[in-house]
């Protein structure tokens, strides 16, 4: 019986050592697939908003993603909780990936909607989902405002205010 106890003990010790090694290996494997430091440090994107005309829509790239910027004209739909005010100007800033499966919706200026070809999702001029499978409005990227410049990648007070309310 004493012998059996000793075998059980050795078995458990072996199991413990193997478990530690297994967990350590899994951690290393997990980390190997994590984005590289150079990717994480991918720079900020600065966009000067001042040359944009009313009603103009443009797409800029940030961290490989399209960012929609729409300078709203008087007639366009406004939403207090999603629009960015820079001075007296009114902008929509959003990550241009459909919140369903990540296709890029197209801005249809005549209908004032973003239409995603992939699964027919639609978003209004505020980036709010109005039709189809998208489960939530377009995401807002972290940004801060420096004068008339928009700096993507850093959470400024304007961003916190917008997301806190949204």
């Amino acid at each position, binding site marked *: 019986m004493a012998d059996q106890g000793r075998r059980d003990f050795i078995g458990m010790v072996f199991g413990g050592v193997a478990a530690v090694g297994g967990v350590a290996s899994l951690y290393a494997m*997990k980390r190997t*697939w*994590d*984005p*590289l430091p150079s*990717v994480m440090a*991918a720079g900020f994107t600065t966009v000067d908003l001042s040359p944009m005309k009313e009603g103009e829509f443009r*797409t800029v*790239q940030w*961290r*490989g*993603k*399209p960012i929609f910027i729409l300078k709203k004209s008087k007639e366009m739909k406004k939403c207090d909780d999603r629009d960015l005010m820079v001075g007296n100007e009114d902008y929509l800033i959003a990550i241009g990936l459909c*919140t*369903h*499966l*990540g*296709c*890029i919706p*197209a801005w249809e200026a005549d209908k004032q909607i973003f239409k*995603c*070809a*992939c*699964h*027919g999702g639609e978003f209004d001029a505020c980036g709010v989902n109005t039709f*189809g*499978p*998208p*489960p*939530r409005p377009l995401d807002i990227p972290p940004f801060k405002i420096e004068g008339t410049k928009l700096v993507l990648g850093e959470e400024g007070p304007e961003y916190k205010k917008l997301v806190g309310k949204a």
Partner: protein
Amino acid sequence: MAHFEKANSVGEWLDQRLAVNKLMKVMMTEYWIPKNINFLWAMGVVLMTMFTVLLISGIFLLMYYKPDTKLAFDSVNYTIMQEVYFGWLWRHMHAVAASVVFLVIYIHMFTAIYYGSYKRGREMIWISGMLLFVTFSAEAFSGYMLPWGQMSYWAAQVITNLFGGIPFIGDELVIWIRGNFYVADSTLTRFFMLHVLLLPLVIMGIIGLHFYSLRIPHVNNQEGEEIDFDAEAEKYKAGQKKESKVIPFWPVFLSKDLFVMGVFMIFYFYLVFYHYNFAMDPINFDPANPMKTPAHIYPEWYFLWSYEVLRGFFFDVGPIAAMDIGLAAFGIANVIFFLMPVLDRSPVVKPAHKRGPFFIWFWILVVDMIVLTIWGKLPPTGINAWIGFFATIVFLVSLLVALPAITKKEAERAGGAA
């Protein structure tokens, strides 16, 4: 050490050391196959052939392909297609085989469903086969990405995004799988690794399991008849070949398999040489562009049915978002066939045309999956969205509700009759 006699031939020498004679008996000359099976049973050998074609053509493609987002597109469309002698042949063989392999897998699967080959002792054959189907799907998807065309890119974008639907960890999981905030070089290189090393290894392992799982319960037959394989084998070995219900795999049965395979290979090479385009989406001849989605994206034909299930629910139901229902339905569609041995509650092993309601159920399922496949490629607007929705409902209801109900009744009748 064991005692060894001097061998008189190479065969004898090998037999002493590797028991090749015994191995030949177990694997071939005394591996008994029922006589009454039709050409549909040859699909396993056809699949094995297709896998070999994929492996060999893949090795030749691998020698010139470059897994780098800057080089991948040209290494396929210029180097392999224009420069490498017979590069076009390997590419078309690989692409066409990747497509028709699914056609044969579906025939193989539906043959098993039709004849009830997933039941009573044969559950592991079915489950290992479904594991093969899933790994083949992952293999096909990871390979589709490699030429780094527009369809490759957006397929990768959509499929990796699916993991974003997993509660709590979804967003971080997507970044982890991609190795970047978007589908980027890191995504290409790791999918390349999966496609050329890890998944093929897994597939070969499961093929071994699938064959082994067949060896003990033995092959089913056209009548679902329970055969005493030992007794029938004795008859055959005693020379009563006509009376015996079984024949050896090699060389008797395989001759039939080889005939079916020959016919299939003519069809396959006809496609390779004259109709390779069906496996090549025109959009994939545009280089990948992360800033522009093609107007209409869809997967290859063999994923269309589950893709249509994914997008079948296009409206919210109460508090549940349409996307979450779609994802859940898609998840169910991808695992539901694993459960066939459980969902079919009848012990009756017979071909579907002798099982009454099950026969109707079978053809409804086949037609519904064809409808899902066709509508999976059409734009999901207007009436199309509704057809997709109803086909999705039919799919889920027939497997989750109708099948257990029909087969439970059948089990009661069979119990009453006995």
